[in-house]
């Protein structure tokens, strides 16, 4: 069902864990029950480190892993622009009906960035 790349990111997810005193924390869930929590370490508007925890199916876990890889080292603006499609593409495709499961990563990232902005006294960004 899942391709090799997805299975690799599912079996060996990158960036699993938590960051103490993270600069931004975001959570997101979907109606399937998938749920992701993301932790950002930010320096100079750039994502220096990122960790996540995800409850969900293989698509959700692999997407979380891939999304964190994709935003690591990126600016917050770049990270904000990350789409589900880009994550799915980087994973070389998700089975039909499973794109939904990757949505949580984008939402969690957005929430984490907005959490960071709030902490900085900035207005939050709209989807």
């Amino acid at each position, binding site marked *: 069902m899942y391709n090799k790349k997805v299975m690799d990111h599912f079996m060996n997810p990158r960036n699993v864990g938590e960051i103490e005193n993270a600069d931004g924390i975001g959570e997101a869930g979907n109606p399937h*029950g998938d749920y992701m929590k993301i932790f950002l370490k930010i320096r100079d508007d750039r994502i220096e480190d990122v960790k996540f925890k995800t409850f969900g199916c293989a698509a*959700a*876990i692999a997407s979380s892993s891939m999304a964190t890889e994709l935003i690591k080292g990126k600016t917050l603006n770049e990270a904000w622009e990350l789409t589900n499609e880009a994550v799915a593409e980087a994973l070389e495709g998700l089975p039909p009906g499973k794109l939904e499961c990757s949505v949580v990563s984008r939402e969690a990232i957005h929430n984490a960035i907005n959490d960071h902005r709030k902490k900085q006294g900035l207005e939050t960004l709209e989807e």
Partner: protein
Amino acid sequence: MRKTLISLGVLMREKRFVYMDHAATTSIKPDVAESMIPFLKEYFGNPSSLYSIGREGKEAIETAREQLAKALGAKPDEIYFTSGGTESDNWAIKGTAFSRQKKGKHIITTSIEHHAVLYPCEYLEGQGFDVTYLPVDRYGLVDPAEVEAALKEDTILISVMYANNEIGTIEPIQEIGKVAKEHDVLFHTDAMQVIGAVQLDMKQKHKDVDMLSLSSHKFYGPKGIGALFLKEGTQIDNFMHGGGQERGKRAGTENVAGIVGMGKAIELATANIEEHNEIIIKMRDRLLSGVLEIPNCRLNGHPEKRLPGNLNFSFEFVEGESLLLMLDQMGICSSTGSACSSGSLETSHVLRAIGLPPEIAQGSLRLTLGDANSKEDIDYVLDVLPETVGKLRNMSPFYNPGSVCEK
């Protein structure tokens, strides 16, 4: 076999292939496969033909019919071959409904039936029928008193599965049959999961069952072949209309090889049910107590009234599809009722019906034992499963080791 070393974290171990999804399907026994091959390679005549070369097929079909009849304690004339469990269920339900719509349009079934029963019922609702889906208790048991209470003037059919495929709960079929009989309503039961696990006897113990569905691939026979037991004198509409096969009740050139294989399979599966169950139950009980040592884990379904081979667990903080796929990477085949696994938005209707909250239903894992299993399989699963659950829990935002109450 090449030995593969595999790791799921720290420990390295020898990978083992463990099939624990016997409720989904079973492998064909070698004797069963052998019995089919002559009907693929040699005897090809049409059983309906008048000349001699169709006769091997015709005779083989009648032998299989006798094998099924014997296994069910029924008469050969009460056995009709179909293309599988789904067709048998569809036939029993729609055939009864359409044949009795002048008499009434009410059907009673349960909320934990297989989709092969539920969806025909839903379809009939669209055709003006009225269906009651009875609730079950937290173990998945249907209450015969509730069946009786649900009866209406115009009830024409009661359909309750013999044993549930997900949680393994065995229903009080005899009591429900009595209710049906007392009120002169036809009674159908989906018995896919019980062939070879429960001794059937349509003449005595199950004399109140009018229709019973079974499917060959659940008892080590081929896929795409099944049967409907239709009690003598029970008149329902045909489902498959056409040629005069199956004494005019089920049209279509017979799947001779499949029928032959199913006949052999049921003979083997019912030859020694008790001894077979003993072996399975022994393995199951060891697996059960081993798995229950994992914290925050529960058994779904009835603790005693359950199929010998069925175990259905819920692991908190873990999503079922992930668990299933990780176990698959370790060589273990299992099943889950999680939402993601089905491609739908909802977790299994059975787990919802027994009242599991969504997050608990999400973490369900079904392990069903059968002929493919050995003591070593149990050891392996007990070795691999805790670690796998642990790995996923460590990834879960909901999991807080401190909050876990040790048992």
